[in-house]
């Protein structure tokens, strides 16, 4: 190593490593190609990477947590250092989580970093999804990448929900009761399905907690990892998309090579994501389960909310007017179905269907390696804006109770407002966005030049 640091050809150790690798695996040509893989430059292309690094932090902190958490509903009495719970009856699951927070050194850091990573993971996925949607990156040949991505979104939401429900505290237990009711509300099969998943009526048999646990620590992480691998491989196989530019075209991709340009950026981003999550994990409290107390079916607290990425569902449940659809003596559609099951189904169906729907509506079945600026495709941008507005309105409606407390605006008045707004605002968003796109494109092209509608 001596003498290698100051300007000689690459050090002997690199030469030896590459030789070893190539002789044992034959991958030197692949590595050579990979090192100069071209990454198109734009800050918005980094959002998916942020999500990826959040996932890495989740797995890392998650492994630590599995070494301390006890996924058991067995009753025990608390004898730890948190006074208000002294002598209280609770499940081993809850007790192990409280002990992890108070008795295990660095335990609370890991718990909080893990939970913040989950919340930020979904922030990054949503931002990434919006970027991909509004630039048309999901078009052929990358629609398969999009489907895999939407699957990961669903898996991540479920994973997060299971994660914070494992702890068996009052807040998350109420969420499980609601999830149970939404499953129950599915027409025809709801009762059977709920009994199957919970191994009996709510709160379910003891197996339910261990079922959540193994799904959360093994089944879903493996699923997400596999989907992620497919997602990345497909992207590399077809190469990243890029914005229009001087040399950028449907045939040529322009950008920064992996080595030396992109690698330090990616690594810097990875460390940056870790830094943000760990700083949050140490400095900003999240899910202080010792303040909620253990869950019991007969107890509830005001102001209970799910984690942010499920806020759209609580909004859906709260906004529905009160009716069960019945025929004579028979129940057809219980109320919880609309806001808790149909609403997310419609949104996910839209996400899955959009690539082929757009092809059908616009007649554009060509391959696209170049991205649209949102304004270049007013139809898609307006539809996306309307859809996003719809979901966002329902989401905001879900927090009306705390708004009522903070701003002293009547809860019932807010609900009536949002019932109207979730219909009116998306329509307004569609019209407004369409006009905005057209106006922006007029600015780009000087007057007198015809703009071809995308």
């Amino acid at each position, binding site marked *: 190593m001596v003498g290698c640091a100051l*300007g000689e050809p690459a050090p002997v150790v690199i030469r030896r490593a590459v030789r070893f690798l190539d002789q044992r695996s034959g991958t030197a040509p692949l590595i050579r190609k990979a090192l100069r893989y071209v990454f198109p430059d734009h800050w918005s292309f980094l959002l998916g990477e942020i999500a990826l690094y959040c996932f890495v932090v989740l797995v890392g902190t998650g492994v630590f947590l599995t070494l301390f958490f006890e996924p058991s509903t067995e009753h025990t009495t608390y004898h730890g250092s948190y006074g208000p719970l002294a002598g209280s009856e609770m499940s081993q699951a809850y007790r192990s989580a409280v002990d992890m927070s108070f008795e295990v050194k660095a335990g609370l850091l890991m718990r909080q970093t893990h939970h913040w990573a989950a919340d930020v993971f979904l922030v990054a996925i949503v931002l990434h999804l919006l970027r991909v949607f509004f630039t048309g990156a999901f078009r052929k040949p990358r629609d398969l990448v999009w489907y895999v991505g939407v699957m990961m979104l669903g898996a991540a939401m479920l994973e997060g929900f299971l994660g914070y429900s494992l702890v068996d505290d009052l807040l998350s237990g109420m969420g499980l009761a609601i999830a149970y009711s939404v499953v129950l*509300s599915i027409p025809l099969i709801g009762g059977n399905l709920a009994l199957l998943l919970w191994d009996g*009526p709510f709160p379910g048999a003891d197996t339910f907690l261990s079922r959540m646990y193994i799904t959360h620590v093994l089944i879903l992480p493996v699923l997400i990892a596999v989907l992620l691998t497919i997602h990345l491989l497909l992207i590399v196989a077809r190469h990243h998309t890029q914005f229009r530019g001087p040399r950028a075209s449907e045939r040529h991709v322009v950008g920064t090579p992996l080595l*030396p340009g992109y690698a330090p950026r990616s690594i810097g981003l990875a460390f940056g994501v870790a830094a943000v999550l760990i700083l949050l994990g*140490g400095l900003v409290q999240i899910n202080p389960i010792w303040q909620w107390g253990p869950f019991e079916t*007969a107890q509830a607290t005001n102001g209970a909310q799910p984690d942010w990425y499920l806020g759209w569902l609580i909004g859906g449940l709260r906004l529905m007017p009160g009716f069960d659809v019945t025929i004579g003596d028979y129940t057809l559609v219980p109320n919880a179905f609309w806001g808790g099951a149909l609403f997310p189904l419609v949104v996910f169906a839209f996400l899955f269907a959009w690539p082929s729907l757009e092809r059908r509506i616009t007649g554009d079945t060509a391959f696209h390696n170049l991205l649209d600026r949102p304004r270049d495709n007013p139809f898609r941008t307006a539809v996306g804006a309307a859809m996003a507005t719809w979901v966002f309105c329902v989401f905001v409606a879900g927090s009306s109770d705390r708004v009522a407390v903070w701003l002293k605006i009547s809860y019932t008045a807010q609900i009536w407002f949002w019932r109207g707004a979730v219909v009116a605002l998306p329509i307004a968003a569609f019209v407004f966005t369409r006009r905005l796109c057209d106006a922006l494109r007029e600015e780009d092209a000087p007057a007198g030049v015809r703009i071809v509608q995308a």
Partner: protein
Amino acid sequence: MNWLVALIALLLGRGRRRHAVPPERVVAPATQRPGAELVVIALLALASLSALAFVPIYALDSLRHLQTQLFGLSLGLAFAFLSAACIVVAKTLVPEEQIVDEYSEPEHAYEQATVEQIVDESGSRFTRRRLVKLAAGGAGAALGAALVTPAASLGPFLDVDQLRRTAWRRGVRLVDSDDKPVRAADVSTKSFLTAFPEGADRDAVGSPLVVVRLDPDSLELPVDREGWAPEGIVAYSKICTHAGCAIALYRTPLHEPTSSKSAFVCPCHYSTFDPAAGGKVLFGPAGRNLPQLPLMIENGELRAAGDFSGPIGPSWWGVRWGNQHRS
């Protein structure tokens, strides 16, 4: 001393120029920036200091109450400095390059055709292709069904009657959360308490009750609930018929003319039920009235006089409305 000289030389020296490069350069050339290098080294040093602080923080017990915050700062800042170092490298110490590559072929028609051909030719010995395919498909489906069947063991999915069963029968005594029998005299007006069936599983959805005492003259119970409210004491299932949360709010006016009327409210989605009118839904997404439990008073203690007026818990496909009165 030598190490001190070396350190000074390293910090003040500018690093030697690269030797002549091989004729065909792959990576574009760029100037060197020793100043930026120093910044990177400084950031790495700060990262090291931050990370090293972790161990003494961990070891010191006196910092127990602040430990999580100090851990977060130490490790978080270490990563932050590392990130900063990488970014400085990315922006100032690697050659700026914009290179061009080609997107791969949209399709490979020749290989696609060859694959088709290979598959087709491989099956050249078959004469009854459709039948064989049908047989194979059938075998696959049957095997699939067999492999999926053990999933039925996950739960008693056929026994949906369980969803209707509760521990309440005529004569079952009401107890509070300390297992003490609830006496009628314990239930005052404008008060509410949670009760459970004596000796039964408290966590079952059919178990918890809310019990309140109303003015008998204000009761407007359905006609077939004559006698369900001795002394005006009424009991309802505590589990909301919307989405299964415990109905933990009781809105009960001290002065009726200037406040909303008495009601149970569920804190999850604010379904509101009228205890004087048989659990009628007043507001919110619940589609079904709250089931009422008939009460009787025996030796001053409250006992159930029967099972609930309707199915308990959140509505599902199997809920029969029968003689339930709707909103």
